[in-house]
């Protein structure tokens, strides 16, 4: 700035300006804006002539590059503003090459005048009567509107309330003016579309704005605090709802099919859920994982879908999801191999569909088998406890999933009463083992111990029955 002023005034004092630009040694330097602190620490206090930017800002003189062209001639000319009605003549400077007496004054077009409706006595009497407005005041209002082109701020400012002894707000004026104009126009032409004026709304709006404007800093602070509090409350509410939802899902899951996410952990997860349920209900095995026969989708593998536009290979649609886990992957590999199928078959559309479905089904078998193991184990422990009470029941061979050898059942073990309906060949290749089955047993014991309806005896029996590998005769 100072440099600019100096240049304008032509009083160059190089000595002073130079002193300003290079601060004296020992003086504390300020970090230039935008410079990294690390860089500044490196160069601070040293001779910076070599690192100073040489590209200084353009000065006033450079910005306005005068002296390129010869100065144009201007003339002092009289003109008449067509927007005025009094024909007042004024003068202004005009570039000498642009003098044209024919062109109208360029600002005349901004003198817009608005047609304010006029009315006759009859019309006034027909539709404009109002208990709070006299004919004279109405005339006065319309006159003012005409005079100031309905610029309401000015109309309001100039409106002489004392003249009729009634205090009018701007909204009163607007309301009277627009409503009468509206009525008048409707009377003249019932089909004309006219905007109406809602004075009440306008009053409220202004009041609101006023209030907002007049808030004190304390009120502002309070408002901020309140919104923050509201946000916190909503967050907590959402969290609570989520928890309740999760719990509901957990309960539902025990009655309905295992979801694909839970499928991997199989029996462990279902048993866990069951325990939750059982402690609540106070009795044993209220819920077992049941598979909805029509519901394939829950267990299905999620293959990538190509929805966006562009080109891709069919074989990409058959890629297994990357997050399916080692066990599922192993099962798929084994079953495909046993069925003499390829991991990456040629990729026509029907093959893609068949293969993708088949692999989903393998995962489903894994889930089912794991659920079966839990069920078998459950039946076993029930039987042990029945036997202690001198009763017994048979466990049909079809429930004996743990005795299924690789390769499936022999022909004579299929289809008979109590026997499996299929050879369960593919099922036999699927590994649905639960490594922490002993863990479940111990957890079960604990649950039973705390359940009040149980006496002491079953807990020991549970410990015996808790070992699924223990050979047992039917």
């Amino acid at each position, binding site marked *: 700035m100072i440099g600019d002023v100096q240049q304008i005034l032509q009083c160059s004092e190089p000595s002073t300006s130079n002193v300003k630009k290079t601060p004296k040694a020992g003086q504390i330097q300020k970090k230039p804006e935008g410079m990294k602190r690390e860089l500044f620490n490196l160069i601070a206090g040293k001779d910076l002539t070599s690192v100073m930017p040489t590209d200084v800002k353009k000065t006033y003189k450079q910005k306005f590059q005068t002296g390129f062209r010869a100065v144009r001639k201007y003339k002092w000319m009289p003109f008449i503003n067509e927007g005025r009605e009094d024909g007042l003549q004024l003068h202004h400077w005009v570039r000498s090459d642009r003098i044209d007496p024919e062109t109208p004054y360029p600002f005349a077009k901004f003198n817009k005048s608005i047609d304010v409706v006029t009315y006759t006595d009859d019309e006034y009497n027909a539709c404009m009567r109002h208990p709070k407005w006299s004919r004279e005041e109405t005339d006065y209002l319309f006159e003012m509107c005409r005079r100031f082109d309905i610029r309401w701020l000015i109309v309001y400012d100039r409106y002489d309330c004392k003249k009729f002894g009634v205090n009018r707000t701007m909204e009163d004026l607007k309301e009277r003016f627009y409503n009468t104009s509206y009525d008048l126009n409707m009377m003249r032409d019932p089909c004309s579309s006219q905007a109406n004026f809602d004075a009440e709304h306008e009053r409220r709006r202004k009041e609101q704005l006023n209030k907002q404007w007049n808030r004190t800093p304390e009120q502002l602070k309070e408002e901020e605090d309140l919104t923050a509090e509201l946000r916190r409350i909503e967050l907590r509410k959402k969290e609570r709802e989520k928890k309740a939802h999760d719990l509901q899902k957990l309960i539902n899951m025990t009655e309905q099919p295992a979801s694909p996410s839970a499928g991997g952990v199989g029996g462990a997860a279902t048993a866990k859920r069951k325990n939750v349920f059982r402690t609540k209900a106070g*009795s*044993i*095995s*209220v819920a*077992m*994982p*049941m*598979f909805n*026969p029509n519901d394939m989708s829950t267990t299905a593998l999620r293959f990538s879908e*190509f929805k*966006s*536009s*562009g*080109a*891709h*290979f*069919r*074989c990409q649609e058959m890629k297994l999801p990357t997050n399916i886990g080692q066990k599922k992957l192993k099962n798929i590999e084994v*079953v495909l191999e046993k*069925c*003499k*199928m390829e991991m990456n*078959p*040629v*990729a*026509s*559309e029907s*093959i893609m569909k*068949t293969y993708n*479905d*088949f692999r989903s*089904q*393998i995962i489903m*078998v894994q889930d*089912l*088998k794991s659920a*079966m193991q839990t*069920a*078998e184990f*459950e*039946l076993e422990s*029930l*039987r042990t*406890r*029945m036997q202690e*009470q001198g*009763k017994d*029941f048979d466990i049909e061979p*079809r*429930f004996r999933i743990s005795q299924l050898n690789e390769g499936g059942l022999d022909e004579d073990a299929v289809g008979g009463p109590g026997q*499996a*309906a*299929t050879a*369960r*060949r*593919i*099922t036999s290749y699927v590994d649905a083992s639960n490594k922490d089955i002993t863990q479940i047993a111990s957890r079960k014991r604990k649950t039973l111990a705390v359940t009040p*309806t*149980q*006496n002491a005896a079953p807990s020991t029996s549970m410990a015996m029955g808790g070992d699924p590998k223990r050979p047992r005769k039917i």
Partner: protein
Amino acid sequence: MADIVERMKKKTVVKPIVYGNTATRLEQKRESDQHTHKWTVFLRPYMLEDPTKWIRKVQFKLHESYANQTRIIEEPPYEVTETGWGEFEVQIRIYFVDSNEKPIVAFHYLRLFQPLIELPSGEQIVCTEFYDEIIFQEPTVQMYRALQASEGKRPDKQSFLNDIEQVKNRTRELGEHAQKEIAAEIEDLRETLKDAHKLIVKYSAELVEQE
């Protein structure tokens, strides 16, 4: 790309292709570089059609030990013949005539030893041919026209050593057969599980009564 590329809404075009390689043994191991096999990696349309209508070029990316690792073929046949001693994965990148349609990449594991196929002449040759389909989802208008311009009606049976239709059928049959088997087992397991559940409920109720 500042300008908006117009695409054919709700249109899908499928172009069957086959890629793979053939390989034969050199008469004797070359002492200079230890190469033992001569191979050809290729990509061809499966149908009888003129691929230049929609393919601009095909880029084969070989193992890094080859000189000029990246080979670009702009005219059919899209293939690279080389000699070597080892198997590796070839990256095949297909560029389309409309550059607004992004190139796509297939990976082919080059085979030198398996599977062997007997030619009519009695000679044995290693040959793999992998059938795949390029799916153009909502292709650009230009690409759509290009794809329509070369619509192959009949499979190109001469160019391939395998009967690809037969391979497809066999694969599909195997899959469908396995599906039937597994569906029956799922049904069996489900029913068994349901019954097991009923029994468990029944017996536990009995036990509770006893106590």
